[in-house]
């Protein structure tokens, strides 16, 4: 739970800096195209370029290494894992071999190289994602989603999840503390049982909360219409300019990769 709270906070996106000020649709366009280029790439250059540029951009708004590191750890472990799988299954040239509990394992060079490419793609892709999440609030993403004609219902459910997620996390933490302070976690089975109770309480609470949220909505005139109300401002010249330059940059990158490698 601790780690979750540490990471799920979106306070970076609520700060004011030049990256958060960029139109959300422009950012989404850039990140989207970049992610596609990232997975299309055949060598490690493009992912590394994305990794480094995103990192620099994030540094420019003073995101600390600790914050980035915390979020990068798990994806990077995943990258290592994938490298191993690829190494064990693809290619011919044996690098290492051995057996584990009688199961024969052979690490091969070509596979490891493919794995390495995937590893860099993970690093690049995740850094791009972080670039988006550190500079864009969920409500802005909801607005953009509405502009993209994503069904209203989905956006509304997401805004509810987001609204109450923090509240429920906080309540759950308090409940866990109180269980702990009454020794609810002393043995494994008691721990599991305590978690079970906690899960049950969580469900009951969320449903009671949903009822009162609905009451509040009705008493504020809700009759099945929209939940979210703020509109996106229309795109202005500046946005188009950034959009265009992003597009050109990405196109150049793509072109370079096509001819050079």
């Amino acid at each position, binding site marked *: 739970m601790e780690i979750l709270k540490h990471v799920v906070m*979106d306070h970076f996106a609520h700060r004011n800096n030049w990256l958060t000020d960029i139109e959300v649709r422009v950012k989404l366009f850039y990140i989207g195209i970049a992610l596609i280029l990232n997975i299309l790439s055949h060598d490690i250059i493009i992912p590394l370029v994305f990794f480094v540029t995103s990192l620099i951009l994030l540094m420019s708004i003073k995101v600390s290494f600790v914050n980035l590191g915390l979020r990068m750890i798990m994806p990077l472990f995943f990258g290592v894992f994938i490298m191993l799988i690829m190494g064990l299954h693809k290619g011919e040239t044996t690098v290492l071999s051995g057996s584990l509990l009688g199961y024969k394992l052979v690490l091969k060079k070509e596979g490891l190289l493919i794995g390495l490419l995937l590893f860099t793609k993970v690093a690049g892709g995740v850094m791009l994602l972080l670039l988006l999440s550190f500079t864009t609030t969920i409500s802005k993403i909801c607005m953009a989603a509405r502009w993209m004609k994503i069904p209203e219902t989905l956006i509304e459910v997401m805004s509810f999840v987001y609204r109450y997620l923090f509240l429920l996390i906080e309540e759950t933490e308090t409940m866990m503390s109180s269980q702990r302070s009454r020794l609810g976690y002393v043995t494994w089975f008691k721990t599991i049982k305590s978690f079970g109770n906690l899960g049950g309480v969580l469900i009951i609470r969320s449903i009671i909360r949903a009822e009162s949220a609905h009451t509040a909505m009705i008493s*504020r*005139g809700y009759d099945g219409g929209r939940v979210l109300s703020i509109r996106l401002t229309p795109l202005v010249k500046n946005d188009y300019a950034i959009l265009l330059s992003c597009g050109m940059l990405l196109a150049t990158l793509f072109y370079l990769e096509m001819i050079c490698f």
Partner: protein
Amino acid sequence: MIKIKVENLIHKYPDGTQALNGVNIDVVEGEFLAILGANGSGKTTLLKHFNGLLKPASGSVVLDNKELNKSKPGDIFRKVGMVFQDPNDQLIAPTVEEDVAFGPTNLNLSYDEIVSRVNNALELVKMKEFAKKAIHALSYGQSKRICIAGILAMKPEILILDEPTSGLDPEGVKIVMKILNELNKKHGITIILATNSVDLVPVLADRVAIMDKGIIVQEGTPEDVFTDSRKLEGLMLELPQIAQLMEVLRDKEKFPINSLSLTIGQARQDLSQLIRLEDNAFVSPEIS
């Protein structure tokens, strides 16, 4: 002019609890009515009848000469705004701005009108700089203010509040009470407020209704209602601290006090007058 007329209101919850046992009360336009009662006396249940969130088992609630049962919900919510006890139950959108805009949007106003109302409401509760903030990043007192703003943006004629100050520190209480006082006295909004704390009621309310076990047992100006501590104690309530002191002084110390002062200002007057009386006695002993 009578704004809301409640007659013989009875409410039964689905599990059989009869939370209201025949409530009668009139709310006059522009007044500040406080409903006072112990935990479980039925305050919240009564408030929810004022805007039709609950339906009476029998009896009637009449708003502006029209029975609530026969009005369209939309019309009622346009007139009556309600602030719930727990701000977390009331704030549903992800950011402050969107939440305040929620009500006006449902009134089908124009975009510009919505924006101006949101701004005005945030201005009134002094939370303008928090417009873009996420709801979950607010402190308790701040979220309480956003609740009020969200209702104000709907420009209701009647404002209903369920324990608006519980959990707030003294400064927070003062701010909320100041907002309410301004709304009532300057903007003429009718205010109905439920509470179980006695100390803030006398300062503001024009009229107090005391509830117990689902009925209204007493009604009148704060001065009328707070005359007898024993009666209130029977209802699990007590006099405001100052009134308790004055009562002790009157009954035990035999101070010559007529009516119990409820606020510090009144008590100050009363007590200093007493001393001055004694001073007079001292200056001109011959007269007495």
